[in-house]
């Protein structure tokens, strides 16, 4: 039996949560595309340690995981969806944008929505595809008005990240943050806005656009 089949068997045979985690790590470490279906299955297991290992494994495999991940988004299992969204965000493939946009606006689970919103800030054009920034900004703008503080918070984090990707987008992101600040009722959310705006303004004067991670 080939190595990968043995590794998959170890996952099926695992009797304790710890055994499962170990087996998933072993499969993830080989970074083999054939592991994708099994790693995807693990995302839906009720074992956060295993799911996280599987998620990192899929991210390490990279772009070839994206189609399988996108297919998972109809899953009823909100835990699996949350890890799927995070994996798509970390891989950063622009093909995932429509899914992230839809998820941000319509998913039932706040944790999935937050991951999707944050993910919108991470998608980058490494493969020189055209990214629909207007669509992303429009969604983030609407998220800034959500009733749930954690959704508004996630939108700010995404705008903060997007603003560091390009000057053109930064202006738009700053404008959105500035205009929302005045009627943001929550103290903590406002503080995150201020932190984002302060770092954006700091960057405006900095030729090399170094990311600022703390003030």
């Amino acid at each position, binding site marked *: 039996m080939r190595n990968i089949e043995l590794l998959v068997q170890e996952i099926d045979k695992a009797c304790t949560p710890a055994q499962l985690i170990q087996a998933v790590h072993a499969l993830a470490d080989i970074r083999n595309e054939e592991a994708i279906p099994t790693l995807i299955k693990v995302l839906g297991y009720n074992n956060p340690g295993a799911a996280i290992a599987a998620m990192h494994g899929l991210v390490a495999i990279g772009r070839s995981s994206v189609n399988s991940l996108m297919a998972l988004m109809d899953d009823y299992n909100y835990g699996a969806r949350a890890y799927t969204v995070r994996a798509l965000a970390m891989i950063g493939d622009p093909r995932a944008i429509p899914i992230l946009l839809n998820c941000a606006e319509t998913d039932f689970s*706040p*944790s999935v929505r937050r991951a999707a919103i944050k993910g919108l800030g991470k998608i980058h054009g490494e493969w020189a595809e055209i990214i629909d920034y207007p669509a992303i900004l429009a969604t983030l703008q609407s998220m800034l008005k959500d009733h749930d503080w954690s959704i508004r918070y996630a939108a700010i984090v995404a705008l903060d990240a997007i603003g560091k990707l390009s000057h053109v987008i930064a202006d738009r992101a700053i404008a959105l943050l500035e205009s929302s600040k005045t009627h943001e009722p929550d103290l903590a959310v406002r*503080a995150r806005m201020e932190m984002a705006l302060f770092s954006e303004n700091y960057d405006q004067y900095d030729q090399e656009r170094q990311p600022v991670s703390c003030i």
Partner: protein
Amino acid sequence: MHDQQSNPKGNELTIALAISNLRSPDLSLRYYAAWWLGKMRVHEAVDALLVAIEDSEDRTELGGYPLRRNAARSLGKLGNPKAISALISALSCEDFYVREAASQAIEEIASHAQGYIAAQVAVSPLAKLLTSQDYLDLNQPYEAILEALGRLKAKSVKDLIEPFLNHSVVRIRLAAARSMYGLTGSDRFADLLVEALANADINIRRVALTDLGEIGYLAAGQAIAHAQTENSFKLFALKGILDTHLPNVNHDPELLENLQQVMLLMDDLL
């Protein structure tokens, strides 16, 4: 019977209907209305709920008062200090869950500035519930009582609270730690909650996270971020820290920097 009154589901319930349902001949409609009015934060329902909290018609087979329980819970959500005296009376109810709901409601009302002062009169009645002969029994809703006394900063009864730090039930020990932190501001009580973040039982870890958020213990940031629970509990706990300390940042750059670190921890949990 009118169609709407025979369907207790939320979509068709209006404020006026819910308030009038509190006196419906159908006891299940009363119960549902009492819950709904709190969930929907219907402030004009306070007076009607103050009547419902004395209801004697809705009883369980074991002698409980379900409508009173829901009325107390909703009065807590509405946060109106005028409910304090009725909630204090409810602390004498023979139904454990009514006493528990009333204690929790007092704590909630006291968590708002205007309620905090009005609720101080509840300290003594709450403390009386702690003085059973054997504090190790479970006849009182100790968690709720201890948390309320902590919120009220009831230093006068510190000696009654302290023994509960050694209670056999973990959750009650955590409530005592949270309460003692509220009374004394001493880190060693908050540290008991931080220790509980490593408890083998995920339910205890979640309770500890909630408590740390409620007391806003700044030093717990990293421990919270790395706790083995769902991210949402950790996010809310960290937000509690922000809510507690942000009002004080104006003349304190070091505090601001610490809170920015908390926000970066929150970012990673999204």
